[in-house]
């Protein structure tokens, strides 16, 4: 049982971590089996996804119930804050790997292939001239177009920046105790998130249907879809988190002084927002 003594709080044991280990293992083994064309893969993967989802719902449910009961001291609150901050930092570094790949390709490997490094280009692809954006020497005959910043990405930028503002407005409403305004602005934020994802999906459709821009379109297609794709996945997750927080607001959770769950979701959303700005500048504009 949960107990706190002398100011310290140590939560009781929990079944969720072991459920999570089983679920995550089944999930990744299933995906690996699927990739290696094993027929059971899809089932193992689905079971794993279901177990993992159950764990996520159950574990967060426990934490929310304990939080609502007021079991968490200020110290626990600070631990959760540090946990969230460092989790977001790890996410930043994950994106850094893909941004690094983009910069390396644009500023080093493509120019080298294209004759700046005579030895490499002569041996591999003599007299090939490449400039960014490129699908590489092996796709020289391929007809395709890159994704420009106008109109969809620019609209999406405005949508995400606006969602950051509505979220901040919701936070202010929460701190002022204005529940109705809080809920309105939260739903507005969720709606903007959904809109962003919808437009992003439409952009992918455009890329595949009209620009002939695919994941396989050389290094440009690889970096474009992997960066925007992982970002898009984070937007979807962030939107779900915000929706859950909104429902909690409607149930009367959180108070003007203590609402870490809300703040964590907001931090996550702002992080997703900032990554998008990086994408907008380095993937779409430059």
């Amino acid at each position: 049982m949960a107990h706190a003594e002398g100011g310290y709080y140590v939560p009781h044991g929990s079944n969720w971590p072991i459920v999570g280990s089983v679920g995550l293992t089944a999930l990744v083994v299933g995906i690996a089996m699927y990739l290696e064309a094993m027929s059971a893969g899809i089932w193992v993967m689905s079971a794993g996804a279901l177990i993992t989802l159950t764990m996520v719902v159950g574990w967060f449910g426990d934490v929310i119930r304990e939080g609502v009961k007021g079991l968490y001291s200020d110290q626990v609150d600070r631990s959760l804050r540090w946990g969230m901050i460092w989790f977001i930092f790890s996410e930043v570094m994950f994106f850094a790997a893909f941004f690094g790949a983009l910069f390396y390709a644009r500023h080093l490997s493509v120019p080298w292939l294209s004759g700046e490094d005579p030895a490499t280009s002569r041996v591999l692809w003599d007299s090939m001239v490449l400039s960014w954006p490129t699908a590489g020497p092996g796709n020289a005959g391929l007809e395709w177009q890159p994704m420009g910043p106008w109109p969809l990405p620019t609209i999406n930028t405005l949508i995400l920046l606006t969602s950051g503002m509505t979220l901040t407005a919701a936070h202010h409403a929460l701190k002022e105790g204005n529940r109705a305004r809080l809920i309105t602005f939260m739903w507005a934020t969720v709606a903007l998130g959904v809109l962003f994802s919808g437009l992003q999906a439409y952009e992918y459709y455009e890329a595949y249907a009209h620009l002939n821009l695919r994941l396989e379109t050389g290094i440009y297609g690889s970096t474009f879809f992997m960066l925007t794709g992982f970002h898009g996945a984070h937007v979807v997750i962030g939107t779900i988190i915000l929706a859950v927080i909104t429902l909690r607001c409607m149930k009367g959770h959180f108070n003007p002084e203590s609402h870490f769950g809300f703040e964590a979701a907001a931090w996550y959303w702002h992080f997703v927002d900032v990554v998008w700005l990086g994408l907008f500048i380095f993937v779409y504009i430059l």
Partner: protein
Amino acid sequence: MTATTHEAGHHADEPTGLTRWLVTTNHKDIGSMYLLFSLAMFLVGGAMALVIRAELFQPGLQLVDPYFFNQMTTMHALVMIFGAVMPAFTGLANWMIPLMVGAPDMALPRMNNWSFWLLPFGFAILLSTLFMPGGGPAGGWTMYPPLMLQTGTAFPFVIFAIHVLGISSIMGSINVVATILNMRAPGMTLMKMPLFVWTWLITAYLMIAVMPVLAGAITMLLTDQYFGTTFFSAAGGGDPVLYQHIFWFFGHPEVYILILPAFGIISTIIPAFARKPLFGYSSMVYATASIAFLSFIVWAHHMFTVGMPLAGQLFFMYSTMLIAVPTGVKVFNWVATMWRGAMTFETPMLFALAFVFLFTIGGFSGLMLAIAPADFQYHDTYFVVAHFHYVLVTGAVFAILAAAYYWLPKWTGHMYSERLGQWHFWLSVIFVNVLFFPQHFLGLAGMPRRIPDYSVQFADWNMISSIGGFGFGFAQLLFVWLLFKCIRGGEKAEARAWEGAEGLEWEVPSPAPHHTFDTPPVVR
């Protein structure tokens, strides 16, 4: 801060048997599981090393298929790094950091359970690949494309196993950082923290920074293999060397992840047995931070031979050499701590002393490898193998063994058998040098690494090295036996098991009760 709830008899309803270990949130339980898991993986990885050394005992192919040999070199590294050394340090962190900073537990105890329990699952996936069609991964632990992309069925399983282990490491590190920043007892300011805590804080920061980068690199491998991306294929405008850059941006900080906690352990043990405070505490802290900072800007010294621009080679050569400065500070401080100390030589101190000597040898060979023009000769030879085994075996592993001997009385409540410990130490330290020192000569003479056969002029030193390998390997069984005896019984340990030991962990009884520091101690 006051108690918000108090439920009487809450200790009574803790589960027992297997369930206790599955659901536990207790840092001592989790620390013990980490340590025992690490020991098991140390033996598994060690068995793989013995397969390697048995095949290399004589020139020619005698025991295993060359492809299986390559699986052994790859798996030995993955198991030792991710299964033995990292979990051992995390286990020590779990056990000792809350005790050292006066906290009742880790900051995020349930996540702590999850970060441990992902490990056995991750390794079940990884080790199972050895039995898949086409065998396990055989392209080296660095998994360079395009060679790695030729792995058989095992390929995606290896990638996902490493993702799982990475998630475990990130969660474990977040927990350590949150614990150190938020759970210190009143009065325990940052600059009063034991050095083991400091080095772990910096290690955890490094892990959170670079494990996701590894995840990114292997994700690109996965999509290159199955989804048609061309990150690492020149045909699509990518570059296989890009993988090496991303990998080593992870890989070099990883090397310090494997050694910084060892520095913390040595900085704890030497003062205890020299009966003098650590010389230059604050310089130790700053040196650790400097090493961590430098680790981010030296990665390409692992790839001097890929054809980098001259400016790149010079930058990475000089930045690498700079690391010798903070490391030199550390070695100086350890020696200065012992200067005119009242030293005794129990097993933990012997391992710590061996660390100072032998890790420094590994540091010097590292300096030789840092010289770009010389590295063209040493690259991918046994000299490199000798170098990193001096820093990882006589460095990291010796420090872990030193820590185990030092804190066993606190964990078990019994003193270990000093006689067995001394035997274990002397056999280890002699055989480990027989094992690895000749590999310097082999490498300088041009023997390549990751090759199951070799030219006859390398025969003598290889035979000696293999003898050392089996000697060192079997000597570790003594430790297992000693550990078993120490857990079962032995001379009762006092709260302060070592005369010169300092720190909050020695203020609680031995064995440390299941719950310690339920109310925070006050540190002055």
